[in-house]
């Protein structure tokens, strides 16, 4: 089939953007990542996009596809039809075309201190959730649809829950727990309204609701015990 792909073009520091249209002949079994590679074989000015593993395991190619954040390598023409609109994730600073600067995600994790310190011990009993939390791709799809996340304040949104989940269940020292709790409440609790749109769009289908409620429960119990 002939697929029409409309791509939003823009660049950091330059005002305005435009939409370019490309036509590629391909089967429905091709992915958006494939289309972009094809487009760039002949485009005068190649479309900037981020790509690494091409098998939905690295999160690089997250973008807004027909209005919804998805991974380009995991979005098939057969599922979305021959009219495709590609835009960059809108809540991160634009670099060029479909490339955005997601380094702020790491800053949020560091600000929340979501990393193990000396004396942290892995919790085997909770293996399944630990494992899942560690499969977060850091793609940013959850942030795109989060009503609380604007990128303008400290609020971390769902991806931060994954790192925090791991850390909180590993740390044993009461003082450290207290400081984590403070950071978490400030950065996470205040911004989340529980819409759970994050869970809807997560390419890894991570169980955000259960992880968040487990952390929250832990925080409450911890406060009572402390």
């Amino acid at each position: 089939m002939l697929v029409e792909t409309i791509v939003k073009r823009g660049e950091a520091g330059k005002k305005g953007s435009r939409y370019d249209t490309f036509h590629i002949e391909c089967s429905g079994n091709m992915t958006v990542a494939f289309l972009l590679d094809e487009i760039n074989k002949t485009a005068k000015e190649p479309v900037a996009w981020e790509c690494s593993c091409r098998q939905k395991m690295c999160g690089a190619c997250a973008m807004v596809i027909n209005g919804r954040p998805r991974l380009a390598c995991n979005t098939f023409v057969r599922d979305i039809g021959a009219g495709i609109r590609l835009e960059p994730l809108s809540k991160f600073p634009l670099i060029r075309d479909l490339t955005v600067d997601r380094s702020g995600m790491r800053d949020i994790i560091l600000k929340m201190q979501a990393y193990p310190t000396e004396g942290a011990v892995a919790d085997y009993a909770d293996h399944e959730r630990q494992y899942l939390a560690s499969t977060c791709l850091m793609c940013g799809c959850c942030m795109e649809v989060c009503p609380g996340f604007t990128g303008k304040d400290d609020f971390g949104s769902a991806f931060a829950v994954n790192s925090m989940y791991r850390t909180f269940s590993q740390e044993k020292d009461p003082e450290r727990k207290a400081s984590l709790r403070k950071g978490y409440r400030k950065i996470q609790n205040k911004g989340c309204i529980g819409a759970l749109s994050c869970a809807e769009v997560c390419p890894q289908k991570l169980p955000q609701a259960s992880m968040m409620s487990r952390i929250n429960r832990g925080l409450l119990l911890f406060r009572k015990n402390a």
Partner: protein
Amino acid sequence: MKILIIGCGLAGLSAAITAAREGSTAILLSPLPPERAESVLAAGGINAALNTKGQDDSWQQHYLDTMKAGVDLADEAAVRNLTEHAPELIRELAADGVAFNRDDAGNPDLRYFGGEKKMRTVYAKAGIGKQLISGLTAIAGRYEAEGRIKRMLRQKFLRVVLAEGHFAGIIAEDTDSGTLSYVPADVLIIGSGGLSGLFQKTTGSCVSSGSVSASLFVSGIEMGNLEMIQYHPTTFETPQKRILISEAARGEGGRLFTVRDGKRWYFMEDWYGKDGNLMPRDVVSQSIYRVCHDMKLGLDGKDQVGLDLTFLSDEIVHERLKEITDITQTYLGLDPKKEILPVYPGIHYFMGGILTDRNHRTSIPGIYAAGGCACIYHGANRLGGNSTLGAIFGGKTAAQTAAADGQKEKLTRESRRDAAKSGEALLRELRSNVGTGTERSGAILADIQDVMSRYMGIVRSADELDEGIRLLSEMENRSPYFAARNISDALAVQDFRLLGLAMLQSALFRRESRGSQVRADYPERDDIHFKVTCAAQLRDGNISVRKEEIGRIFDAG
């Protein structure tokens, strides 16, 4: 001490954490953050003789299996270090929170893997790489918060700058603006992965092309055993790449077969006994090649054989092999519990690369290498589960050696100043290429990849290798266009052509069949002449390949 690390996969992260723990400052320079590294694709597991299954395992057996699979080309002392320290490394990672599967006693669980008779592969379902990267990234967080690890993202390594033959700094390119800068440091650790960019479709990631190795080759670093390329037996093709089906599928009981005279034929079991499906990867890949090419018995008349997992339990297929099921459902539309998976060997790993000694030094003082870019542990063929181990242990060892070598004191202030000047000069020279060249670099790269894929196949011969060398030599005059925002692409194409030539010449030079090097014209292993490292080097514009004693130690400088 300031340690500059290229690449933030398992080797780079491990080096950074070690450097930070030892009081140095680590700079992680890479285009993308760790979660995009090729390491996240590692599937099956990480090897360590934990001996928790009552099978009387030991690191000595892990050592012997690694040497045997590598057909005696690896440095014994290096492999001894690796295997002896593996159990301790796993215990550390488990304590630090890496979510390995656990056995009933709470130990990291073990599974069978190719080339090993004991259960020795620690796993996390079928997604070890992602779990290890997440674990190491979390650990690094603490040192990032303290300022001991710094990320320099959206930067590409372009060229190394030396002073009196010693490492002094690098030229890096901003991936967005194309701006070039000189980055000085006391030590350089390369953890940039394998050489997938030289070939058409591999199981690798596109950010991990091998351009760093190619650039260093052009700058004179010695490469080792470039001919040793691992074709993983079980991969399938998508429009953009080959996707790996982890060896874990066979470790958990999966069987390879084709159809002969209307009946299923389990050729690996027929040829190698009941554990035949778990022979080392070179043996399995060459067997599949034999079935499809020599015997013309590919499944459905195509270059493929069947991988049968249907008879395994739901728990195994959907839980322990979760990632495999997920990937085959998405990209093949096949549920391995119900359907046969068609597979064929694909390029997966490079045992050769930057020649690296047992301490992880390279031929250039001040430069260290670890992980997929390094030629050190795997000889002529790598065991599944040893790459993740080699990368993490290697990064750690490289950082420790760099600290012990006292690289901070090696250059005087004057030589550093001179190096900065020559760095700036090199930077201007590189920039002066902008606008030159006549051809899209992608078109030249595609032709290089075509030649390499055609002539560096599973089976090679002098005639074909000569032809490949001729074709790449003829491409010398094609000039890639240097775009202002991105001179790295054009530079990489020029470097790849030279490294590709070195690879073809290395395969031609090794006139024997050993491990992953199969020569149709020299079918026998020849220990008398070729139990050596094939060292390739570019000097004064000429590529030389020569024999190098295994286990050579490099100078600290």
